[in-house]
């Protein structure tokens, strides 16, 4: 239990570091400054999303699990924020099957995968798309994050390895070997990250 708590705190630390990373922070403040005269409503929404992302990162260290709905809400905010940077060049989608909102899972498992997809699948090129889908297959929750970038291993994005490793560590700690993360080339090119989680919670 202590080891899992430590891993959760490390995830929180990474999330906070990502949120307070100078590139991310000052770029988002700059985005808001740019939007205020052009599109004040979007500027407000952007600040709200930023605040919620920070708040979520702060909370993540204090709870063992969150409802899937909450984690997906944060993913949606994060993707919306990134879309304001790239306009039409970044296409994102989030498809969630019915009836899954109340499933419990550790916080901040999905967000690093989406962040990777955007950073190494899209931001190093002129644009692209990231699609997140969530469905149930019998007793498992399947979360897929697809990008249409250069595919695994082909990108120069540093840090992708660390976040994948840390997601795998947390999966092992919370679920023993009953959960998995796979990262592979997607059938149409690009990268597919697939998270498979048992629905009825961690093995006891």
């Amino acid at each position, binding site marked *: 239990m202590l080891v899992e708590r430590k891993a959760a705190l490390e995830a929180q630390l990474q999330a906070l570091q990502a949120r307070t990373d100078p590139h991310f922070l000052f770029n988002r403040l*700059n985005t808001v400054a740019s939007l205020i005269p*052009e599109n004040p409503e979007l500027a407000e929404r952007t600040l709200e999303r930023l605040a919620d992302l920070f708040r979520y990162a702060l909370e993540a260290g204090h709870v063992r699990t969150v409802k899937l709905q909450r984690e997906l809400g944060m993913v949606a905010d994060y993707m919306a924020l990134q879309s304001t940077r790239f306009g039409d060049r970044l296409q994102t989608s989030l498809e969630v099957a019915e009836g899954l909102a109340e499933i419990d899972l550790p916080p901040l498992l999905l967000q690093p995968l989406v962040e990777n997809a955007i950073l190494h699948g899209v931001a190093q090129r002129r644009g692209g798309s990231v699609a997140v889908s969530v469905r149930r297959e019998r007793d498992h929750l399947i979360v897929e994050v697809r990008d249409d970038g250069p595919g695994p291993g082909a990108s120069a994005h540093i840090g992708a390895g660390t976040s994948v490793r840390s997601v795998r560590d947390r999966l092992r700690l919370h679920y023993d070997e009953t959960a998995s993360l796979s990262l592979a080339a997607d059938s149409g090119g690009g990268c597919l990250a697939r998270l498979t989680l048992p629905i009825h919670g961690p093995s006891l």
Partner: protein
Amino acid sequence: MKALVVDDEDPARRRLARMLGEIANVEVMGELEDGDAVLRALERQPADVLFLDVRMPGFDGIGLAQRYVDLPPIVFVTAYDHYAVSAFELNAVDYLLKPVRIERLVTAVERVRARQMTDRDAVGRALTAAQNADPLRLLGSSAVSAG
């Protein structure tokens, strides 16, 4: 002063262009997304200054400045001050941190103007030195001084 604004983020590019438009005697010739577009634009029309984001897809601002020594004066614009040392080694005119304040942008424009005048003086002196080094002229001037 003709300026090109280069940043892969749409709102960042628009904001800088808008602010430059508020400064007297500065004309924003174009807004571009990456280093390749800069080179193509400069082939079509010269610019007096490039406002370059440091991190862009494929061809980052520092890399661009390192590879092409014939670029116009550069002002780097970035969220992160980690690159400040490289920028000055590359003889950038200035280095601005996002979000940029108008007063700081005005100072950067003034530094570009000062750099332009220095460059013109330097070109003038170089031309004069080249003329003086001409052997025929040397013969001519010694003939004059002998007379």
